[in-house]
């Protein structure tokens, strides 16, 4: 099942998806996709009976996003070696905004998939998956509240948890009250 999923993803994304050590990381597959593939990834997982557990933003202001991608030189550590992956990626700091989709499923073999998408911090925009997965609606609204990430095509991005007139994004690292 995992392999099937990997194959399907392989046709979708150029970067290799990573099989992570579940006992260490808490999820099985880590997929990095571009903003234009977010919906396709959701479609693929939805077809396979997955449900969306959460959507999260991470603000990597002035930091290199931590990555599970094996470094070229560290490649010999191999996959699934859990502890070996602890090293942070040493890419130069680029202001990025990350959105992480956590998928899980209730039937069949346990498989948690984290789909992540890195965006330019200056212009964080990616398409919504709420048309496909209605449950994503609130999660996306919340992420918009906290990070100001714009989910284009979302029916209503008005503040969900913050006051109606809120124009700040408190979980951005440069937020000052």
């Amino acid at each position, binding site marked *: 099942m995992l392999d099937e999923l990997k194959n399907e993803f392989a046709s979708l994304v150029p970067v290799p998806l990573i099989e992570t050590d579940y006992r260490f990381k808490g999820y099985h597959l880590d997929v990095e996709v571009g903003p234009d593939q977010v919906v396709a990834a959701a479609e693929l997982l939805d077809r396979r009976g997955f449900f969306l557990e959460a959507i999260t933003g991470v603000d990597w202001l002035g930091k290199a996003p931590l990555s599970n991608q094996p470094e070229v030189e560290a490649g010999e550590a191999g996959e699934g070696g859990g502890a070996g992956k602890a090293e942070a990626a040493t890419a130069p700091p680029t202001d990025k905004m990350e959105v992480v989709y956590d998928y899980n499923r209730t039937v069949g073999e346990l498989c948690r998939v984290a789909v992540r998408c890195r965006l330019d911090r200056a212009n964080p925009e990616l398409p919504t998956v709420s048309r496909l997965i209605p449950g994503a609606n609130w999660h996306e609204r919340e992420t918009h509240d*906290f990070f100001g990430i714009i989910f284009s095509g979302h029916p209503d991005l008005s503040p969900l948890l913050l006051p109606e007139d809120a124009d700040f994004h408190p979980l951005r690292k440069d937020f000052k009250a």
Partner: protein
Amino acid sequence: MNDLARSQNQETFVLNLGPQHPATHGVLRVKLTMDGEYVVHAEPVLGYVHRMHEKMGENRTWAQFMPNTARLDYLGALSYNHGYVKVVEQAMGIEVPERAEYLRVITVELNRIASHLLWYGAFVLDLGGFTPLLYAFDDREHVLDLLESVTGSRLTFCYFRFGGLYNDVDDNFVGGARAFIKRLRRRLPDYHNLVTKNIILIKRLKDVGVLSAEMCRKYGATGPVLRGSGVDYDVRRNEPYSVYPELDFEVPVYGEGDSMARYMVRMDEIEQCMRIVEQALDKLPEGPVVAEKVPKILKPPPGDYYSAVEAARGTFGIRIVSDGTNTPYRMKLRSPTFSNLSLFGEASRGMLLPDALALMGSLDLVIPEIDR
């Protein structure tokens, strides 16, 4: 129901339910577009008790965040304690002594009983019956006494520590837990006789608020809501953690998907919780309750980690991002009721208002957990 509204020449009105309304269990607000007594459109408005937990996570050390977990879902605080310590232990590779794991399960399950009892009282109160609340609170107080004797608090428990527990239990606790289970076994039939078999309750709940399994999946609903829709999924069994694999329990599943099914799932879960507690008490090993090698200052290796536990209301997921310092870089709390409530808008369409409130009650909402 759109055609319903159209047939009435769009003579709808907006009804504002909350944020201060007894049926919303706190400060939830629902903007209802009504056609007479029928709900045309329901839009929950959240955030009235947004307490910045995720921001606070980035402002304090790993250990300092512990008390926050108790204030997220104050009815099932220990499940949240568990979820948080679990993800940090997982990242740090801390081994928890067996006795501590057993005690975690015992206290979490007792807490789950307390949570379900409170839900039972409040739910029947929503439907117009006051007395069951008094019964439920009476029994709940016994659980709280037990938990207070070991944790030191009645509601917002902060009992778990990274690698173990705050303190060990004594014989009084073990005896008290057994006595409580004996007592609740005697009381549960009363609950069923008084309430479950009550014709008024049955008429209010049966075939009301039917949620299909597919709808639950699309909205990410978990916990008793999902199990009431016939999906056999429980994190404790499907994604075993702690010592749950060593304990024998069933996951109650009802296929009807109506409010009654969700009611029955929770009532049956109380019984299963008692089974778990009993077995865990029997198997409770001797030994330390805190792991020996837990660093004073925690610095999980850089990376992100995810972990989920079965809280009283469903899957509580927590995603932490560590940058290798002593404060979390990002802490995402995935609360079950947030997803469970998100289906309310679609599910309540075309329902009578009192039925919609019965549906809302059967979702078992804890607002601070939704708003975080």
